[in-house]
């Protein structure tokens, strides 16, 4: 008996609609985040993450309504990321029914924000999202934090950053390899392992999942506490249930 490793489907939401195509034959409206979240919940998802990629603040109100609707129907943890810049943004999402918020760019620009946020709402609500790219390979590989979708280097070492964010009160880390994101060739396992070993808080591995083996590798080789994926679930290639069965077959503890 032990804690299960989590599988977390992730949805990109723009102005209240899911983007990056979700295709299920039996879903009425493949753009409705609540309907898709309900589907993943039925399949056994352990949590759901919404990334709000909306640019304008008007559209953020739409996201709040999406979160409210989801929280009335789906009773598993919900994380919301994207555009979280102030404690007020966090409170709004939590009051709407989110359980955690993911802070990304705002933490890089002002690390103290993470401390303020965790003090105000509790570490358990604060996920720090880290977008990292490898900058040195060889025996001592190094990864650096990038912002703006992986375009802007910051000079910050990813491992040191993860440790600092833990110290500032992050309750969890959502780690995305910008080298692997969208490639479907698997997680950056060395990066995942380096971050997992460096912190005491849970780490969610993200970026690069193309098949079920990749999910299992993230846990077994990367040491991740949870694995996040988008496209392999969206296009109906695999269900969350199949992913869990596969991982259980690899000796990983999952919630079935």
């Amino acid at each position, binding site marked *: 008996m032990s*804690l299960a490793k*989590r599988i977390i489907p992730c949805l990109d939401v723009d102005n209240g609609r899911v983007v990056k195509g979700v295709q299920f034959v039996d879903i009425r409206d493949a753009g409705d985040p609540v309907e898709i979240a309900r589907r993943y919940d039925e399949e056994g998802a352990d949590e759901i993450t919404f990334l709000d990629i909306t640019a304008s603040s008007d559209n953020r109100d739409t996201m709040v309504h999406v979160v409210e609707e989801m929280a009335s129907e789906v009773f598993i943890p919900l994380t919301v990321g994207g555009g979280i810049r102030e404690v007020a943004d966090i409170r709004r999402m*939590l009051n709407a*029914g989110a359980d955690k918020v993911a802070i990304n760019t705002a933490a890089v620009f002002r690390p103290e924000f993470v401390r303020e946020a965790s003090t105000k*709402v509790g570490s358990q609500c604060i996920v720090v999202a880290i977008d990292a790219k490898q900058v040195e390979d060889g025996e001592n590989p190094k990864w650096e934090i990038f912002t703006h979708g992986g375009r802007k280097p910051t000079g910050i070492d990813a491992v040191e950053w993860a440790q600092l964010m833990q110290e500032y009160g992050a309750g969890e880390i959502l780690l995305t390899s910008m080298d692997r994101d969208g490639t479907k060739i698997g997680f950056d396992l060395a990066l995942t392992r380096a971050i997992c070993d460096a912190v*005491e*808080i849970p780490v969610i591995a993200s970026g690069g999942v193309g098949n079920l083996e990749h999910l299992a590798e993230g846990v077994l080789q990367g040491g991740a*506490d949870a694995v996040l994926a988008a496209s392999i679930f969206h296009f109906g290639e695999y269900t969350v249930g199949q992913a869990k069965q596969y991982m259980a077959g690899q000796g990983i503890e999952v919630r079935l």
Partner: protein
Amino acid sequence: MSTIAVIDYGMGNLRSVYKALEHVTDKRVIVSQDAAEIRAAERVVFPGQGAIGDAMHHINGLGLGGILNEVFEDRPFLGICLGLQALVDHSEEDGGTGCFGLIPGTVKRFASPLIEVDTGERLKVPHMGWNQVSHRHDHPLWQGIEDNSRFYFVHSYYVAVSRPEDSAGVTHYGVDFTAAAAHENVFAVQFHPEKSQHDGLQLLQNFVNWDGKP
């Protein structure tokens, strides 16, 4: 009309608890920090997330200590997360915090590093995710829930009760800890039933229908 009062003392997100209760019952659900409203309720839910020191500070600041002591005694009462931790004598958190002392026991922090003795694995803190709860005895709130079902946890501190008979459910994470405590009309859980899908909703439904007898 019978009312379920969710006590709001400014610690954490009560919407999920409120929504989950609404989902399982036609009874009126209110979120309240008003002693008269809470006193009038048929049953009480005491949730909360965050630090216990802050929680006790808020409870006392809002003058809710008296009404809590009252409803502990006389009606179905469900504590969730901090709502369990606040019921024991004392917490290690925040340099030592006195709690309500309804159930003898202490709140302790998971060791750092936390090591699973059998495997040597280093465990992450907070304890976050779905873990199994092993029933220690039958209870009306376990009705329809299989032994060792998984519930969603997120916490860095855990409860150790002094009297084994107060423990209704135990979870293992580096150590065995009290995941559910039961004492007469009081049932309190470390996990989040409002976030634990079917089994969580079942537990809430059991609570809503509970007569308060063990």
